[in-house]
């Protein structure tokens, strides 16, 4: 050993140095490279947390909360009977510098035009108000989603949870996406009520019936006759409501207070007693033209002008005003001719034999809109004459 060391000591030391440089230096440099990803993740989390603090506009620290989903069904936009349960994808507590919780943020996934509208809802736990919202991700059609402007988002700012009518105004052209926010906001309130003991204001009332008013003199201004039981004393109200669901005239009962009126206005569109999406916009006694509107694809209005004969018992002409886009790039199910082929098909068939098509593949929502209009027209003629067109 001594001889070996004497002979090879230098080369052994140099070789060892090189091996050590290779091994330990390699481990160190590997560690440095691996740390890049670690720092990137840390930074992403820090940025995300900062965005939550910015959203809340208060506090200085974010702590992940362990709140869980709850069972609560909401209508899938565009469907009358199909419901879904929103998903809580994350929940965070915002703490101040004394580690006292000042706000909570629920990140909720809801359904708009498509599934996956992920939005953060920040709630001030002292005032029970929604502070603001922040879109995390979505798969909505960008062109439509962009129409949700500042005016739309302003509705969420400092919105109190004490509102009986807890909703926001949808943006025309992006109705489904708007409904996704609305469902998310309501789900956030439900979660908040469960997690923080908040009592959601609950007013007892019931819509007993909604029927259409076909009286020739008043059917445009007072299209709906609504019967409602409301209040702790079960007051009965029967009244005319207009196309915007405002109370126009009381038939029987007393005028309810504004909270109830807001509630009626909010809930009447969802009632199934009548087709609340379709309205008689105008009627001209001289020209005998009646105009009926409905909301179809994309929340866009389809308007049909019917010209009646002198006896007011038959349709002699139809003019359809529509901007439906069933042949757009977003709809590859539609195989027919370009717009307005669907509108023309419905009009021609109705004029020829008084019937209407079944839904047309790829243009279902447009077709259903037209069917609703023709159905209402039939109802009007039947009410006036006791028969069809």
């Amino acid at each position, binding site marked *: 050993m001594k001889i070996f060391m004497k002979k090879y000591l230098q080369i052994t030391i140099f070789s060892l140095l090189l091996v050590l440089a290779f091994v330990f230096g390699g481990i160190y440099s590997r560690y440095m*490279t691996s740390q890049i990803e670690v720092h990137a993740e840390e930074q992403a989390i820090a940025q995300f947390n900062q965005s939550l603090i910015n959203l809340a506009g208060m506090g200085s620290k974010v702590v992940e909360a362990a709140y869980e989903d709850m069972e609560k069904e909401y209508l899938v936009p565009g469907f009358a009977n199909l419901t879904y349960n929103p998903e809580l994808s994350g929940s965070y507590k915002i703490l101040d510098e004394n580690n006292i919780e000042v706000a909570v943020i629920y990140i909720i996934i809801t359904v708009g035009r498509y599934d996956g509208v992920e939005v953060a809802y920040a709630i001030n736990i002292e005032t029970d108000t929604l502070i603001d919202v922040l879109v995390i991700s979505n798969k909505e059609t960008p062109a439509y989603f962009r129409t949700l402007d500042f005016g739309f988002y302003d509705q969420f700012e400092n919105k109190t949870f004490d509102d009986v009518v807890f909703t926001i105004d949808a943006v025309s052209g992006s109705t489904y996406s708007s409904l996704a926010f609305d469902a998310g906001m309501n789900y956030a309130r439900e979660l908040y009520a469960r997690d923080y003991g908040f009592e959601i204001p609950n007013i007892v009332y019931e819509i007993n019936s909604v029927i259409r008013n076909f009286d020739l003199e008043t059917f445009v201004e007072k299209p709906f006759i609504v019967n409602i039981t409301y209040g702790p004393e079960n007051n009965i109200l029967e009244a005319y409501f207009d196309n915007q669901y405002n109370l126009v005239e009381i038939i029987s009962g007393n005028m309810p207070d504004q909270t109830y009126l807001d509630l009626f206005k909010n809930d009447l569109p969802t009632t199934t007693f009548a087709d609340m999406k379709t309205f008689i916009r105008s009627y001209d006694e001289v020209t005998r033209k009646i105009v009926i509107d409905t909301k179809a694809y994309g929340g866009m209005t389809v308007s049909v002008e019917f010209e009646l004969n002198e006896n007011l018992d038959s349709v002699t002409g139809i003019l359809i005003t529509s901007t439906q886009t069933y042949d757009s790039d977003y709809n590859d199910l539609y195989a027919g001719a370009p717009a307005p082929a669907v509108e023309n098909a419905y009009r021609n068939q109705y004029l020829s034999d008084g019937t209407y098509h079944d839904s047309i593949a790829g243009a279902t929502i447009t077709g259903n809109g037209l069917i609703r209009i023709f159905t209402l027209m039939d109802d009007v003629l039947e009410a006036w004459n006791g028969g069809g067109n």
Partner: protein
Amino acid sequence: MARFAGGKAPFLRKYDEKDYGTQVIMKDFIIALVPVILFAWYKNGIQVYLDGNINFLEMLYPLFFILMGAIISTTMEGIFFYVTDKEHRGAKEISQKLSLSFAAIPGLILALLLPLYTPIWVLIFAAFVATIIGKMIFGGFGHNIFNPALLGYAVVGFTLMGVVNAAGGVFNASEVLIDSYAGATPLGVLASGKEIDYNILVKPYGTLSNFFIGTIPGALGETSALAILFGGLYLVIRKVIKWYTPVIYVGTVFVLSWMIGALSGETGLWFPTYSILTGGVMFAAVFMATEPVTTPTNVIGKVFFALFLGVLTVLFRFVGNLPEGVGTSLIFLNIFAIPIDKFTAVIRTKRFSKPGGLYFGILTVLVILLAVYTLVKAGSMYTAFQIPFIGWVI
């Protein structure tokens, strides 16, 4: 006519004086590198640690990396001495040889030329190329043709830069967070965009003072012109290097860059300033263009070397497909260091009489032709302006 020194014997050589000689020069060289090393550590380690973006171990890494360069190259030279000289394998003998060979310097410079996240095995490979192939095979210190560190750097640059970038590249943990950098160095932006615009080339990185101080992305030792100037000033005061070599080199790059900018309609001085403060221009000017072994030794030779180096740097950087340009031009010129030295030695002794004048003329015309070619080619790349006829030919 040859000139001779006159005087009384004995003639003592300056190199025999206590505070002169290659050993002292190399010590000075290492001292001059200290501000550069410290700044590299500060910018990529200490400052990033203070920003809260890395931990303590990561903070030490830049210094470790630079020291590893020195240790690896010294070790390799030690092994080379041991293997090739069977008669002198004693620890003391090898240690003495290493000391006379300044074994640590190629590795030290090499580490400063490489990005922070260069894997250690790449550094070992580069050090092998630098020390063994670039230096020892040619006969060791004083016999090498190429600047050893530069050779190692060039081989890595041409073969393993993808590996280096995959491991993290030049951006430290604070720089990767700056959105405006967009993952590119200032020279990378110029090379990819081919657009001379202050808002694109300078503004994302701050102001030109950031370029001067060195708080921009880049290889460990090349970003801080200020630290390099400190080192250069020390070397000039210690008379280790001649002041005019870096000045002429940087000046040539400055003037040609200004002309290229002017041809594209940008006459401001920011662009030539940007040009000399980016990449390795300043580092090469002080620490590599002045290297005594691989550059000419006489005054005229140094001047022509610096001029050629400046022109070639601009040519490779703005016309070629090499965003940096400095390393390639230096390696290229290393080949011609001896011929330039020989020609210019004749000029120095013969002045402008035959053949000194001829040599002077040839070298001057070559520099001018290269400069004109660079301007014509670069000008047409950065502007729609084309010089009629000439542009079609070259």
